[in-house]
């Protein structure tokens, strides 16, 4: 035992210098590839300088126009700040306490959630139907894409002008068409029970083209062999859609639904332009309430606090999205 050990160590001893001489050279050769992490310190310094140098312009904007307002907004939400500059002192969580007891805040948050639910369903389903129709291989592809997607290129104000005019109770195209087929007229934007649906219809027309394009792109990536195998087995078009296309689209659907929820939660433009939140606050979303408390009520601190409550909601949905996406890829 002991002799073996000594002989081993004896054998190792002479080989050590040779190894240590060979190792660094090997090391250098391995590191010669231009993009591997360099150990030599000048190289590392240069990489650090280059890295932060390339990042610097973005970082400058990022810090000044995103991180700073985000932190400053949080600070504002803890003060009684107003546009008149009356009370800048810290008041702790008083703004948050007030917001949580504010019926108008809850009403507007409720409107935002209601809109999110009733808009997400048609915005995903109609997009899926449109993509499925176009993907069957209709002639004049450009025509369908143009008609379904073109409204997405419009500014919200253009959409609002179009639809306010069509919703006009006396002179509008929609009520006139309803009258022609013997249906009663509807006070689209003036009826508290209907106004939110009118907003949903306008939003559907405006933005469904975006989801349609995402679906169409995903459908065109479904491998053709799947369909060939299915037709050999005698599966018809409906059967193929439900047992091949739809399951293959599940990851896309999950992403579209979550992106749509996040987009719908930010609703403001169309509502502000078409109903200004009315009638009787029945369509006022939380973003409009933030805007009004800040710029009409001049209560910046309180407005910032509501912004952060809204932010909390968005973060919760985003975290959910992240968890679902990770579970899918795992």
């Amino acid at each position: 035992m002991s002799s073996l050990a000594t002989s081993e160590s004896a054998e190792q001893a002479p080989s050590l210098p040779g190894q240590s001489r060979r190792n660094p050279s090997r090391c250098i050769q391995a590191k010669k590839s231009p993009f591997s992490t360099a150990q030599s310190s000048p190289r590392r310094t240069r990489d650090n300088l280059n890295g932060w140098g390339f990042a610097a312009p973005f970082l400058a904007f990022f810090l000044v126009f995103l991180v700073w307002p985000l932190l400053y907004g949080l600070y504002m939400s803890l003060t009684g700040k107003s546009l008149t500059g009356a009370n800048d002192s810290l008041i702790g969580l008083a703004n948050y306490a007030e917001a949580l007891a504010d019926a108008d805040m809850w009403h507007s948050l409720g409107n935002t959630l209601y809109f999110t639910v009733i808009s997400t369903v048609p915005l995903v389903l109609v997009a899926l139907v449109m993509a499925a129709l176009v993907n069957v291989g209709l002639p004049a592809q450009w025509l369908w894409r143009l008609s379904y997607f073109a409204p997405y290129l419009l500014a919200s104000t253009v959409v609002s002008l179009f639809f306010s005019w069509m919703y006009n109770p006396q002179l509008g195209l929609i009520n006139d068409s309803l009258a022609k087929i013997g249906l009663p007229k509807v006070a689209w934007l003036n009826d508290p029970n209907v106004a939110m649906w009118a907003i949903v219809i306008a939003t559907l027309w405006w933005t469904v083209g975006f989801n349609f394009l995402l679906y169409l792109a995903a459908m065109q990536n479904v491998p053709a062999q799947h369909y060939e195998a299915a037709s050999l087995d005698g599966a018809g078009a409906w059967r193929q859609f439900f047992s091949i296309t739809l399951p293959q689209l599940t990851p896309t659907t999950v992403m579209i639904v979550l992106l749509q929820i996040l987009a719908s939660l930010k609703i403001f433009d169309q509502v502000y332009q078409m109903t200004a939140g009315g009638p009787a606050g029945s369509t006022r979303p939380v973003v409009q309430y933030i805007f009004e408390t800040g710029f009409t009520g001049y209560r910046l601190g309180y407005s910032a606090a509501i912004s952060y409550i809204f932010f909390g909601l968005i973060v919760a949905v985003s975290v959910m999205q992240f968890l679902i996406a990770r579970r899918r890829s795992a």
Partner: protein
Amino acid sequence: MATQTLTRPALRGTSATQLRQPRKKMTAGRAAVLAVAAILAVLWLIPFAWATVTAFKSETDAAAPKVSWIPPSGFTADAFVKVFQDGNIPLWTWNSLYTSAAITVITLAISALVAYALSRIDFRGKKVLMTVIIASIIIPPPVLIIPLFYQMVALHMIDTSWAIILPQVIHPAMVFVLKKFFDQIPPELEEAAVMDGASRMRIFTQIILPLSRPILAAVAIFVFISAWNNFLWPFISTNDGSILTLPVGLQTIKSAYGIQYAQNMASALLAALPLILVFLFFQRQIIKGVATTGLAGT
């Protein structure tokens, strides 16, 4: 002519789809599909058609209680003439054009630079930077309006084009899209340049950027459309009529023209025209661009 060449590859894709589903079996089915698609297309085109018809009516005909597609006193371009004489729409279009172009150029430049660093350079703190940028994707712009407004007042930028441009150049999701594209460019392409002692900036501008044209175009399209149509922030940060962007300016005419429906629709159509025209010419690129960047988040 140009549009025809552009749509050809799309049609080729179509014939591949047709192979999957034999034509003979589908005749009745295809007719039904075509009918539903056509009904949807008509529904989707009606708002454009109705706005156009209204815009070419006299104000009296537009406000007539009897709704008509063909106006009793004939079509007229009076509304367009009036809108042009006011001069607001051309001015706002120009404002939208240069602010959106500036936003697009700055966004592309700063995002591509940081994305290259994140993709190719090993520097201390890279992981932290990457995490922070990805995390910031979830920050909704409406949350920032109150502090950002206050900040712009402090910087004396309220009611200048800078107020519109500067806060809109941060698109963390686009940084991520660009980084993912750069990751796929084989490093071998840069090796020779590195051996020759080329600087990082030279490699970036002469090797990486030329290879990245498609993704740069896609990001540019996405950023330009969102800047062109953005309402909330330009609406808050500007009041002065001479620097308003198109979407914000249009909001003011609703109250100015009041019940002058033909002029309202003429203004709306003129505001819609530039992007629709661009879309007609670059349909394929825009569709591809939106599909590539779309899922990365808005």
